[in-house]
């Protein structure tokens, strides 16, 4: 799997592009808050430790974002802990999420039948409901992440 610096992850091939629409990402992927993020964007962020870490365990993979800096607006940072289990379940525990022009969801990279869904805590059978489960897609059909809607929520994608 490939972690990128813009708040997302892909499988099979790496994709480091910023400000993507879901349809732009042609590999299977998970967008936690995929936007235009840059840990080294400014003097403050270059001195802020631990903006992104990961740990691989025998039964799960955990990636932790701690105030990962947005490239466009200095005041925007994003915090989350995402846990991938071997079963395919994905759990994202969000802290404060300030970036608005982001992509959030899971998808298989084909985008032939992506489902744009309302924000809720659990999504079931994401693989059988279509080619993707999309919550926010600012550079695609939308919606935009406004009002810190993701902040302090825990979202689970169940296979």
């Amino acid at each position: 799997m490939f972690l990128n610096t813009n708040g997302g992850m892909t499988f099979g091939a790496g994709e480091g592009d910023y400000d993507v629409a879901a349809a732009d990402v042609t590999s299977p992927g998970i967008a936690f808050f995929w936007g235009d993020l840059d840990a080294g964007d400014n003097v403050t962020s270059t001195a802020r430790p631990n903006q992104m870490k990961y740990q691989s365990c025998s039964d799960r993979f955990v990636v932790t974002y701690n105030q990962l800096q947005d490239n466009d607006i200095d005041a925007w940072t994003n915090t989350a802990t995402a846990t991938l289990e071997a079963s395919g379940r994905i759990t994202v525990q969000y802290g404060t999420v300030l970036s608005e022009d982001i992509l959030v969801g899971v998808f298989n990279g084909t985008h032939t039948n992506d489902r744009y869904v309302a924000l809720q805590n659990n999504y079931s059978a994401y693989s059988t409901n279509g080619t993707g489960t999309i919550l926010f897609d600012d550079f695609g059909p939308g919606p935009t992440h406004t009002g810190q809607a993701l902040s302090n929520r825990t979202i689970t994608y169940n296979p």
Partner: protein
Amino acid sequence: MFGTSNRRTSLSAALTLSATALAACGGDSPTDVSTCDPEVNLFPTPVSDATSPFADVDDSFLQVAFAGGFTFS
């Protein structure tokens, strides 16, 4: 079918493993079979291309391994 994984793991095996490994890494339960590699800090301070394992701090990606596998299906 999302169909991409580092190593396919059956759902039943994964659920069994999850049930016996609910404790955090390094837990002292005798049934805790989970083991973890050391945590990797991708942006050590100060954040720079030289200190990060990414090729570039901005708009880059890095391949990472998940020993347990992940069935994206």
